[in-house]
Structure formats: C-alpha cells, structure tokens
C-alpha cells in the first residue's frame, strides 16, 4: 500500500530534480549571448501587416509594443483571442503603431522553432500544444517561465533585459520609429512578459528621448529598477485573475521592504492599478476573451481595449502640449537659434 505511493513520490522527486537541472542550465543562453558566443544579430521574421496591426502609420503619435504571455514560441501569435485583441486595439487607436512581432523570451528575437539545436523539440512541443496532449506542450511554458525568472534575477536580469531592450528598439526601428522624437512608447506586458517589459524599460528609457510607459495586463513582475525608469505603470487586474499574484514570490514586492523599487515607484505615484471587473487571466473569461460578456453586454476584449485606449489617449492629450513645445536639439553655433524646427513660423516672422 505504501510502496506504490513512495514510488510515485520518488517519480515526482526525480521530475522535480530534472526540472531544477534544466532551470540551472537555462541561463546559459543569456550568458552565452552576453559573452558574444552567438553574435549580436537580432532576428525577425517578415510578417505582413493586416492593415491594422504591424502597420506603419505615417503620422503616428505613439508606438505600442505587445509582449505576449509565456505560451508563445515565436513573434507570431497563434491565439485568435490575442489576434482579435490586437486588431481591436489598433482600430481603436488610429494614431498608434501596434507592434506584436517580438518574441519576449529570447535574447535575440530568435523563435524557439528556429533555434539551431533544439528546434525539433520545440516544433514537436508546439504540435502537442495544438493537438494535445497539452501536458507535453507545457514544456514551452516552463521554458519561457524560466526566462521570466532569468529576467527577474539580480545576476542575469541586467544582461537579459539589455538584450530584450535591444530587441524592442530593433522592433521600433523596423516600424520607422524616429529615435530622436518625443513619441511615447507603450510596452504592453501580458502575464509573465510584464517582467520582460519592466526589465527592458530600464535600458529603453536610457536610449530613447521619449517616455516609456508600461501597461501590465495581469502582469507578473518583480521589483525591478525598470519600474523607476518607466514614466508610469498601469497595472490592469481582474477579479478572477490569480496569476498576477505570482509576483508575490518576489520578496521585494512585499510592502515591508519599503526601499524596494516597487514600493518607491508606488510612493512616487508612478503606479496606477486599474480594476477590470470579473475578468480572469487567460482563455475563456480572460482579459482578451471575445465571447464572454459583462452584465451590460460588452465583450471582455472590447472593455479591455476601451480602457487601454482611454489610458493611451489620455496620455497623448497631455503629451500634446509637450509635443507642440518640442524643439529638436539644435547645435549651439547657430547664428539665430530662436525658432529652430518651425520654418513656417520663421517665414511668417520674416515676412512681417
């Protein structure tokens, strides 16, 4: 009676040990990248725009980068809910460029299915994920969850997050983001990707002149310096979502560590928490569900887009005054540096 139980326990023990060994080897990808073993190249797949998402808009007032949850294997979304959400978001914000083709769980945006050695394993896992058994497919989630832990680690985090920031910058530039501008960048971190978003913001904010905002959609993230580097953090959470509580495994997210980055960001008023009603984390009843409806008949995905778009437009309307005041950097040897980048006003002044 006891023996089979012990055997089952032993099996679990071995599985757990195997998982730990895997976890211990997982940072080698990030570390090898830093050491220059794999080169500096950033990969991307050409994915044509559908007219809304991934469309370069000439008069873009903001850039939105969507970073997906830990179920992904590449920059391409395989979830119809996500695709629906992104299309709705891009339609709701006609002045935004929505980028969704970054893979947040790789140092150089290389899809798992494109990796030199293990591609076959990941392709197999992807098929299992689609066609079942789903348990076999979950090795993708485990692998990506390890990447989230790497990003939150004090040793690997600064390394991984720089790589991630480079991937994001590369993504922005692919969509004609003017590096010299004040066009704000919104990084949407869904679930575990929020840690990646927060981590990368530290460096992205160093390189860009524009403010970087973090929109956390049920996000899981540790107390990271990126929280202070971001202009503001909007944290969306629903009643039925328990996943974002996973953040509490990071001790520095607890209120007692008053000097932690998270608590400082909160005191500085950089964090806005937005309650999303009865929504859950993912799948049916999740933030992106196009089928579940609120009591007033609004689809969940529409409500999520509505609130997110409202946040973005609010910031943009505040930003507008700033954009009008914006003057590009002008070298100091100018004879008359008064109205530098406004030839029209200059000409009218000259005409008078």
């Amino acid at each position: 009676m006891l023996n089979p139980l012990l055997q089952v326990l032993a099996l679990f023990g071995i599985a757990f040990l195997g998982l730990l060994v895997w976890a211990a080897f997982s940072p080698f990808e990030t570390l090898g990248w830093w050491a220059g073993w794999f080169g500096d190249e950033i990969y991307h797949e050409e994915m044509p725009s559908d007219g809304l998402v991934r469309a370069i808009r000439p008069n873009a007032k903001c850039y939105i980068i969507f970073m997906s949850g830990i179920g992904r294997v590449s920059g391409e979304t395989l979830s119809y809910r996500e695709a629906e959400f992104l299309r709705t978001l891009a339609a709701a914000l006609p002045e935004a460029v929505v980028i969704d083709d970054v893979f947040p769980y790789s140092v150089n945006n290389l899809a798992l299915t494109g990796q030199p050695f293990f591609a076959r394993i990941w392709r197999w896992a992807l098929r299992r994920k689609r066609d079942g058994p789903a348990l076999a497919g979950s090795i993708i989630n485990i692998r990506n969850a390890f990447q989230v832990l790497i990003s939150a680690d004090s040793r690997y985090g600064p390394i991984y997050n720089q790589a991630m920031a480079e991937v994001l910058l590369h993504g922005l530039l692919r969509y004609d983001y003017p590096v010299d501008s004040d066009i704000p960048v919104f990084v949407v971190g869904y679930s575990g990707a929020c840690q990646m978003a927060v981590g990368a913001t530290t460096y992205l904010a160093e390189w860009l002149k524009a403010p970087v905002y973090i929109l956390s959609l049920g996000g899981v993230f540790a107390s990271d310096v990126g929280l202070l580097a971001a202009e503001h953090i909007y944290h969306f959470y629903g009643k039925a979502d328990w996943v974002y509580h996973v953040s509490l495994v990071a001790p520095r997210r607890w209120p007692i560590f008053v000097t932690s980055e998270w608590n400082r960001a909160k005191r500085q008023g950089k964090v806005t928490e937005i309650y999303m009603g009865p929504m859950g984390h993912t799948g049916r009843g999740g933030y992106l569900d196009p089928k579940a409806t609120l009591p007033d008949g609004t689809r969940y995905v529409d409500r999520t887009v509505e609130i997110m778009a409202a946040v973005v437009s609010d910031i943009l309307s505040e930003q507008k005054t700033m954009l009008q005041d914006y003057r590009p950097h002008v070298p100091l040897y100018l004879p008359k540096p008064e109205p530098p980048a406004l030839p029209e006003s200059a000409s009218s002044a000259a005409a008078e």
Partner: protein
Amino acid sequence: MIELPSFGQTIRMAMRLDPSIYRAIQIAPNGLWVALLIVSLASMSEALGQSVILFINRVRPRRYLVALGISTVSNMIGYLLWATVVWLMGAFFYGLDFPFIAIASAVGLAYAPQLLAFFELVPFLGNPFGIILSLWSMLAIAVAIYVGLNFTFGQALLASATGWLLIQVWRRTIGIPVYALGHWIQDRAAGAPLRFEIKDIPRLRHTPRLLENIDTWRDLLSRAKWEEFMDVMRAEANARDEQPLPPRPERSLTRPVTTTGVTLQPAQDKDEESEGEDIHA
C-alpha cells in the same frame, strides 16, 4: 575494519550532518579516496555554479572550459588548505596527535553540501540557495572538526571560526603571492582579464552596432532638420535679395565610437560625455 555505506548513502549522510559517517570515514580503508572524490566533484560543481563571472567577462567557449578546470583545481587547493589548517590547529593549539589523513577525510566529506553548488545557477531561486548552501557547508565543517578532533560542539565551532580567521590571515600575508599566481593563471586560462565581478553587472552595458549608431543617428537627424531650416532661410534671404547667410561651418560627424563589446559606464562618464557634446559650440 569499517566498511562505508554506498557512495550515494555516504553523501546523503554527510549532507544530513550525521556524525557517525564523519567518524567512519576516518577509519575506513578507502575513506580518503571517497573524500577526495567528493571534494573533486564538489569543486567542479562549485566552479560551474560560479562560472557566471566568466561569462560576464566575455570568455570564449574553449577558454571557458579551461577556466572551469582551473577553478576546479583551485577549489581543491582550497580544500587542502582547510584540511591543513584544521590539522595544524589540532596539533599545535590543542596538542592532539591525529593522522593528517583522518582529518583530511573528515574535512573532505564536509564538502558534500557543495555538490549542490551547481544549483546556484537556477535563476531567481539560486541566489538565496547560495546563502543557505554556504551556511550548510560551515555547519558541515564544524561537524567534521567536532568529530575529527573529538571536540565538544562548542569547541568545534570555535575551532572552525579560528580556522577561517587563520585562512583570512594567510590570504592577506604570506599567501598573497600564491593568490596572485592563482589569479594570473585564471586570467591566462580565461584569455581575458577577469575585470568584472558579479556586483559590476548592473553597470555593464552591451553596445552592439545598433546602439553604436544611435548617437550618430540623432546627430544626423538634427543635422537634417538644421539643413532643412537653413535651406528655407537661405531661400527667403535670396528672395529678399539680402546679404546671404554665412555658409554652415564644417564640422565632423565622427565621435568616439565604442568598439562592439562591453563598456563600463560609471556615473561620472555621463557628465564627461555631455561636456564632449558641447564641443560643437
């Protein structure tokens, strides 16, 4: 003669800090070999667990393996030092007459917890685990001394603290050239000076070509805007038949470019950089 239990069992008992195994290994005929095997495996595991430092110094793959080997050896030398210090303390401070091999076996067995040092690599959870592991090893060494020298546990703790102190003194006095030699060998093996430590990581910056260009990019952008503005002004001036504006002074767009690789950017560097930008004035 006492037979040791199987290797796995020995390790498990040593990790549980079971005094009987520390006693048994001193008299078992193959005790020293078992202890040495544990020490070498533990040294390897520790070398792997601490290899993050090799990566952040951008060591090449082959050099990485060599450097791992060197740190394994240096960990084993550390073990010899420990065993010698414990033996000398027993002999001189407490006037005990124990064979060195017995002490070396017990101290070697105390390295068993370090077999898990590899797991310090586990992201996020590895950091606290490293702290637990070092406390665990301290306790194991105290148990080894307590059994090895027939001390009370209090005496053993005192002795292991004294041992630690002696090693620190050795490191800072006669040991300096030996350590310098060790560092030199490590640097040679790594093929690059190991300049950066774990605590430097947040200050390190990766500068690939993408980022090297970003400043030039900005420069070009503002220059383009300037040209555009000046063209309009010149056109207007010409239209009004005024004195033409002076031509734009030549200035070079080149600026110090960091090589692809790692640059350390301390806070004061930023100020210097901004001063540098004012040069175009």
